[in-house]
């Protein structure tokens, strides 16, 4: 029977499992993402470097190609540093992607005061945040550790022998390092958009926190002749952690331990902000 002829009736069918409801929010958010051509174009650009890196690895292991350029052996040795540089490039792109996508996930709901409609259902605030974060985690994973892992597998197949098993720590470092960065970016984007409730302002604030925070941190370092100002620089913090994970020389002025503490504090502040702002109704005390 045509739907318009049916009329309203009570629902008596099966219900979806409670644990899976947060994926509904993720799915709807995901469907809305690629309506923007700019985002789609940027997302494609994010794969240029991984493709270039794979090509480089192929050339590095291809005697025929090398001989064309009158080169012998290989161009360079593939170590943790190669993957570290990959992470720096892709991590930077992930930041801009998160700045573009993250604020648009929560702020429309808050700006339209739609949260009561989400939360009056068997659906909690935690599930809401989890759903929105899942969208970001999947999107940012696609430009960080997923192509990184592909790169790792390509290198393993080209290098042959026991390279894969000898360098398993690189894969672990890529996944762990990416997830840390993705979680920090996601929390920051969600918290800032929950706070200002305006997509553009939240994106600007996110850029401000990362870039102005870095400048402010360096200013503190210079004025007070300390290195602790860099703890305000989120980029520096994550670089310090990646340096330790990829076993490369630490190029920033803070230790990995200090960076962990700084990122944990930033994440805790973001979670606090989310718990304060993501409510069905704000209480005016």
């Amino acid at each position, binding site marked *: 029977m045509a739907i318009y002829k049916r009329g309203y009736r009570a629902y008596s*069918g099966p219900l979806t499992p409670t644990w899976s409801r947060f994926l509904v929010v993720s799915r709807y958010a995901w469907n809305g993402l690629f309506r923007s051509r700019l985002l789609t174009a940027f997302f494609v650009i994010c794969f240029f470097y991984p493709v270039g890196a794979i090509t480089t690895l192929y050339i590095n292991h291809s005697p025929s190609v090398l001989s064309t350029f009158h080169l012998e052996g290989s161009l360079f040795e593939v170590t943790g540093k190669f993957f570290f540089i990959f992470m720096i490039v892709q991590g930077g792109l992930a930041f801009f992607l998160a700045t573009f996508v993250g604020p648009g996930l929560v702020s429309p709901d808050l700006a339209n005061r739609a949260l009561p409609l989400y939360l009056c259902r068997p659906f909690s605030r935690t599930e809401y945040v989890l759903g929105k974060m899942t969208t970001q985690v999947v999107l940012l994973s696609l430009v960080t550790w997923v192509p990184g892992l592909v790169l790792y597998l390509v290198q393993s197949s080209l290098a042959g022998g026991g390279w894969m098993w000898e360098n398993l720590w690189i894969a672990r470092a890529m996944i762990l390092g990416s997830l840390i960065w993705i979680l920090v970016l996601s929390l920051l984007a969600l918290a800032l958009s929950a706070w200002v409730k305006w997509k553009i302002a939240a994106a600007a604030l996110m850029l401000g926190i990362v870039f102005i925070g870095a400048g402010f941190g360096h200013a503190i370092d210079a004025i007070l002749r300390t290195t602790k100002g860099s703890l305000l620089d989120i980029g520096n913090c994550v670089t310090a952690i990646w340096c330790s994970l990829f076993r490369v020389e630490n190029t920033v002025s803070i230790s990995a331990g200090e960076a962990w503490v700084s990122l944990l504090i930033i994440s805790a502040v973001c979670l606090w902000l989310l718990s304060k702002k993501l409510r069905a109704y704000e209480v005016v005390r």
Partner: protein
Amino acid sequence: MTPVIELDKLAVRFGKRDILKDLTCSLSGRSIGLLGPNGAGKSTLINTLLGFYEPAHGNARVLGFDVRREQRQIRTAVGYMPENDALIANMSGVAFIRLMGELSGLPSEAALERAHEALFYVGLGEARYRKLGTYSLGMRQLAKLAQAIVHGPRLLILDEPTNGLDPPARQRMIRLVREMKDTHQMQIVLCSHLLRDVEESCEEVLILKDGRIVHYANLEQERRANKRFVEIEALGDEAVFADALATLGCECATGGGGRFRLVLSDNIEIRDIYRIAADHDIQLRRLNYRRDSLEDIFLRAMNGSGSEAAPETVEVSNGHL
């Protein structure tokens, strides 16, 4: 039968402000109206029942579920239409209602099907693919109603559903509410400051003022009750006539300009009023029987609940005072 709403010394506090103060009642009617002036605590009560606000002390149960411990069960059984605009402007009507259905636990295909059904039911069938941001105020109210019923709730909580509606749209909304109660066996809690809305669609009324329950009325019972309300327009000394009526044993309220409203008890006949009027040289210009309207009940509740006279709580058990 499980009461729809049970309040047990429920108090809600925002900072240092007491918003709801020791509310105690048990309501079992199919359609319950929450009445009160702006700021009385109606919306706060609803939001507390939905688990949005934490009670400062006391407790509440909705359909037998505890608001502190069983929020998920409450929210599964309840459909909620908020007072404020709460629709995501850049989503189409059907996509939004489908999303809400899925969040309530409906599988994706069923949610889509029911989104269409709900939108046709409320009268938005032709506009279901339009962006919600392009809807008129009346259409947005109907869309909010559609999202509240998409998952087939047992209890429908409506917060000011006729806000901003023109008379035909208001009539349509009230008709839908009554239909859901009568045809689809939903229980309704309707919160409004518009007396007509409540009077036309509710059986029980709870009147709040300053965060307290000031009156409970079972409209169905009151409509059936053989109370004899009489309106009189008289010419003469009003004070003397009012005293005489009171002496006779009538509940009497003066409306000014010689107007009186009386409730006759069983042992008083109309001829007694004529006699008293004659005794005191009062001319009766008009006399008619009249049932207490909700407006009368409401005004009496408001007037009789001055800060000194207001009871701490009004005990309402199983629908009776």
